């Protein structure tokens, strides 16, 4: 005779069938028990869905820089420090055109150093139309175009010559072009911003809209032209540096950092007085910020799940007592202890999974409604759905073990006699 035969699939199916039967015959009791698991899983899935949607949207916006490119600016790109830390950044020396020239001269590892600045935001007008005052005016050097992955739809980009002689030309983002020149090409046309006319020499390809506001609603003019018009004093520009390739990226960062620290007289050991970041470092910064929120949710949810687990255990203990006779019958006709254990564990897991499935569904729906309200893309965090269901099974097993063991260890003769 075989001493240890494995748990058979047919037996598991039989157990699952019995479990569903018993849930169905105690609807209210099961529903109340499920509620706990449901709330726990719901909160996990809700927050994870919302976070994932937020992350998706922010990552899209952060991925503005081209390959192997990093940016240097006076203010950090993401700051979670609150008003207290603003003072620190406010004391920093502005980054000026001389820093740009210094880098262009000495940063031998970089293939391109460019500079840009957001000069103004206002209304733009053409002979056809005037926009709402939400058009960004960006001053840029020629190198900004490759560094930000700006490709031309038509015309030409801003050239070094434009920057040197501070010409009054501009390149339009595709969104702005559509608004100002709905009937045909913008090339050669004139636009006005803040009363100053610019000649359109090029139009950029579409980048798309993320988070509801169009990324393409801007005009680019030569940085020097912009600085002449909008002033240089106290203005801090942003530098974009492109490394040759991924291998030399870190070295390039170090070289640039060294040059800037020397030029800006930062004492050894002191913190940089500028912020240096890339797409990846921004994304990881964002993730480390959301990590705190995720840990918080995990803690709250696990408290809910522990409470739910205790409810499951309670119900299972009642169930074992109620079904003592059934256990006796099963033992008499040949069920091993292990079979009884499996049956009751399956029942606990089925209970938890039912709650989990409802919780996941409700969490996904609520999370995506929240995402819609916040103008974020719809997402399904597949990994968290599976993890959530896995946690449910774990809760079922952990809190089902004691009742199931109790059931398995009942004496067959005593349980057959049980009334």
């Amino acid at each position, binding site marked *: 005779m075989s001493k240890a035969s494995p748990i058979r699939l047919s*037996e598991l199916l039989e157990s699952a069938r019995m479990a569903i039967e018993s849930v169905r*015959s105690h609807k209210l009791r099961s529903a109340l028990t499920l509620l706990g698991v449901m709330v726990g899983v719901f909160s996990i899935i809700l927050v994870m869905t919302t976070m994932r949607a937020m992350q998706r949207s922010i990552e899209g916006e952060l991925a503005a820089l081209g390959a192997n490119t990093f940016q240097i600016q006076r203010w950090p790109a993401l700051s979670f420090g609150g008003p207290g830390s603003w003072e620190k950044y406010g004391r920093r020396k502005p980054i000026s055109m001389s820093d740009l020239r210094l880098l262009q001269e000495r940063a031998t590892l970089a293939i391109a150093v460019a500079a840009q600045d957001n000069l103004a935001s206002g209304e733009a007008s053409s002979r056809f139309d005037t926009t709402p005052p939400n058009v960004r005016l960006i001053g840029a050097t020629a190198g900004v175009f490759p560094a930000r992955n700006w490709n031309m739809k038509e015309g030409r980009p801003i050239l070094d010559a434009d920057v040197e002689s501070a010409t009054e030309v501009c390149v339009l983002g595709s969104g702005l072009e559509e608004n100002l020149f709905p009937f045909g090409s913008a090339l050669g046309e004139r636009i006005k911003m803040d009363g100053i006319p610019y000649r359109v020499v090029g139009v950029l390809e579409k980048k798309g809209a993320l988070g509801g506001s169009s990324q393409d609603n801007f005009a680019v003019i030569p940085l020097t032209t912009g600085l002449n018009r909008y002033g240089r004093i106290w203005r801090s520009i942003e530098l974009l540096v492109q490394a040759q390739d991924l291998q030399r990226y870190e070295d390039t960062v170090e070289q640039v950092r060294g040059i800037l620290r020397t030029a800006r007289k930062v004492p050894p050991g002191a913190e940089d007085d500028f912020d240096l970041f890339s797409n990846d470092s921004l994304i990881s910064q964002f993730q480390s910020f959301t990590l705190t929120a995720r840990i918080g949710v995990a803690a709250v949810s696990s408290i809910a799940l522990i409470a739910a687990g205790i409810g499951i255990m309670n119900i299972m203990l009642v169930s074992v007592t109620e079904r003592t006779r059934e256990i006796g*019958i099963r033992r008499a006709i040949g069920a091993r202890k292990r079979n009884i254990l499996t049956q009751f564990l399956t029942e606990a897991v089925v209970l938890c999974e039912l709650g989990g499935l409802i919780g996941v569904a409700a969490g996904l729906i609520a999370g995506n409604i929240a995402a819609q309200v916040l103008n974020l893309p719809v997402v399904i965090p597949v990994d968290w759905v599976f993890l959530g269901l896995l946690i449910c099974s774990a809760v079922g097993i952990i809190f089902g073990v004691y009742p199931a063991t109790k059931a398995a260890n009942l004496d067959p003769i005593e349980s057959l006699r049980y009334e």
Partner: protein
Amino acid sequence: MPLISVENLSRRYLMGGETIHALRDVSLAIESGEYLAIMGPSGSGKSTLMNLLGCLDSPSSGRYELNGSRVSEMDDDQLAEIRNREIGFVFQTFNLLPRSTALQNVELPLVYSGMPAVARRQRAIEVLAQVGLAERMQHKPNELSGGQRQRVAIARALVTRPSIILADEPTGNLDSRTGDEIMSLFAELSVNGNTVILVTHEEEIARHTRRIIRIRDGLIASDQTNISPPPTPGAHTDTGQPMVP
């Protein structure tokens, strides 16, 4: 070699610091195909003997061999397997699972023996037809009469083709007419070659069998062949099945 061979079987319980001898040195041999009754008043030890023979309990001392296996030395899992394969229980209170249909109840022992679902269903249907319940397979126990419930229980006992059918007061909860029907079903099973052991305190019931073992105070008081069993039911039975000797 006998089907059941019991030597010096004892069972002692410890109750409130006092040892109770429920069974003392019982020796017994039962051949395959026998139809017998174990009788005795309550507290005589007949239930203890039944539990031991049915492998629900292990003896304190002594030897029990069933169909060539040393049952007295088996662990819990092995006993479960023996119960599943060798023993078919029929209880006074039927002991069917209330939320399962007749068919599911009869299938259950085969679930534990690991028979594939299709073969299992087929075998269960076959046995239910044999006890005359082909029409009521999808009914739950509370939709069946007492006699029908007991037939389902008998079908469940037969479904694994066990060595012995062990029936504990099988007619105790039935009216006398239904009880007679059940008794003729047992007689028929016996004629078909099954070993049937009835545990009862009713002379009326024991009279149907061909051997009567009387237990008193944990000992075998008498073990006699029943000289005048009623004639076994003829070729015609209420199951409508022809008799196959």
